[in-house]
């Protein structure tokens, strides 16, 4: 009979089918692995954000905010944060702080008058061992609503080789896809540049959630508001400024005494755009001064201290959690890659001036 002979035929080839089946299972697993690792499929991964880093990037430096200086200090809680969060830092009298002031430019050798973005990174370690890491910028908001927008923005504003300026058509296309970025462009054109690290206000930009003793959740953003007054400079003053003007200014001020910033926590109300870092919340939102940061002295980042720290803003203590802000969530992986590659270079002895070794060849990337 035909039917039985077919079955008999399949029986003799049974092992072949089994081997094919096993190969299929194994290759499915390999494919899943390769896709998850970002090796196939071409999806945007957190690694994509560092792809443009030139291979000549000076070893051991952060892939962005490369030029910086470490600081030590103390955070004194006011106690006003306690009703909103169980985090020890809001209650503790004196919390040791380590941090870093930096320029927004990726170039670790950038002149201080080359960027408007100045930053503060900070890690507070409470007496229960919990760490609160944060990275703050003097910008009031992020340009785009998500992280991919950052890549598209970089791409659109890349100078074309022919003219040396960005291609207007691409800029237009970008602003069409990310209309909120126009707000940033307008702000960038008009807002004064800070003339000192000491008088700048540093903003967290992304949103977080405080968790109170009774489990109540409160969406927040915060800023470090300076006690020193804001100073700016005219374009001509700025152009004439010395290469390390901002860092020299900071050192000079600290010789006279510590600098202070208030930790100002802004409480969101329902309907505020918690998951969109390109939107600021209304001015009228309630603010709480949760404490004061005292910055007592600074030291060269080549000597360690803040150098090898990843001030990953997603590593928050108990009592604080992350919001669903997409830029915040993406930054976690991006910072890990930058931290891994620079600490690797330092660990394996490839870094030169980043660790204060005399540089035989100064591999400037600009």
């Amino acid at each position, binding site marked *: 009979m035909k039917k039985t002979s077919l079955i008999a035929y399949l029986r*003799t080839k*049974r*092992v*072949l089918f*089994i*081997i094919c*089946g*096993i190969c299929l*299972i*194994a290759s499915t*697993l*390999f494919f*899943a*692995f390769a896709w*998850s*690792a*970002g090796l196939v499929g071409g*999806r*945007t*991964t*957190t*690694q994509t954000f560092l792809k443009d880093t030139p291979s000549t990037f000076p070893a051991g430096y952060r892939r962005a905010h490369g030029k910086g200086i470490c600081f030590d200090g103390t955070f004194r809680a006011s106690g006003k944060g306690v009703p909103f969060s169980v985090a020890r830092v809001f209650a503790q009298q004196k919390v040791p702080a380590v941090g870093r002031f930096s320029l927004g430019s990726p170039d670790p050798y950038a002149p201080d008058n080359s960027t408007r973005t100045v930053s503060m990174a900070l890690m507070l370690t409470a007496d*229960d*061992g*919990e*760490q609160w890491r944060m990275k703050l910028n003097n910008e009031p908001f992020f340009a785009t609503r998500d*992280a*991919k927008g950052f890549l598209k923005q970089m791409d659109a504003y890349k100078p074309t080789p022919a003219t040396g300026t960005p291609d207007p058509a691409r800029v237009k296309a970008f602003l069409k896809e990310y209309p909120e970025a126009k707000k940033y462009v307008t702000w960038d054109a008009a807002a004064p540049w800070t003339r000192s690290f000491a008088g700048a206000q540093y903003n967290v930009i992304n949103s977080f959630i405080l968790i109170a003793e009774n489990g109540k959740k409160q969406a927040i953003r915060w800023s470090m508001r300076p006690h020193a007054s804001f100073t700016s400079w005219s374009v001509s003053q700025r152009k004439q400024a010395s290469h390390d003007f901002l860092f020299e200014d900071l050192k000079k001020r600290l010789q006279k005494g510590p600098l202070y910033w208030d930790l100002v926590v802004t409480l969101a109300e329902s309907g505020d755009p918690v998951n969109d870092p390109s939107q600021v919340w209304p001015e009228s939102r309630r603010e709480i001064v949760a404490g004061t940061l005292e910055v007592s002295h600074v030291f060269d980042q080549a000597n360690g201290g803040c150098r*090898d*720290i*990843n001030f990953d803003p*997603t*590593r928050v*203590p*108990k009592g604080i*959690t*992350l919001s669903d802000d*997409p830029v915040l*969530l*993406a930054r*976690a*992986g991006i910072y*890990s*890659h930058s*931290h*891994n590659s620079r*600490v*690797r270079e*330092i*660990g*394996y002895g490839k870094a030169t001036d980043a660790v204060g070794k005399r540089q035989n060849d100064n591999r400037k990337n600009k």
Partner: protein
Amino acid sequence: MARKKNIPSAPPTHFNTTARILHWLMAAMILAMIFVGLGMMTSLTWRPWLLDLHMPIGIAILLLVIIRFINRLSFSVPKMPASISNFQSTAAGTLHWLLYAMMLALPLTGWAQLSAGGFLVKLFPGINLPSILQQSPFLYALLHDAHRVMAWLLFLMVVGHLSAALLHAWAYRDGLFSSITWGKKMINRSEEHFKKSDSLRENCKK
């Protein structure tokens, strides 16, 4: 078979229940951990959540592998089916010990790299493991690379192990697969078994 089970000197037909439960529980955990690890190094959205899973599950694997290892050394295990060549059984045995080594080394390098990098090893909010190493860029770099290379190697080993296991389960049907499940041991069941492995050998030669 049932008769053999009661004679202490004869090797058992199955791994003991502890070994079987731990094997399948840990197989699921380890496969999940590999993908959790890869995901947290690539995802734009899930990294913080995946990292919060990676650390407690990884530490659970560390505890379980210690129990499993003690169990493995304390009780006799089934012998490989007689139809398996010496080479194959040595290869399988070596792979098994290497798998044990990986199950131990991965959580340890994970924990140690976090310590060397100055990070907290967070199990649950507010509950962290102590640091097991002083902070050092060299140790961080080394352990980070070791963890990554070993995780990728473990994946290759697990796929190889899985493929071999399925070959035994479906093609050889020699009872090796059922020794770690709750199925009946089919060893030396009939001539049919030998016929099948003969045809397999022919196919392999092709």
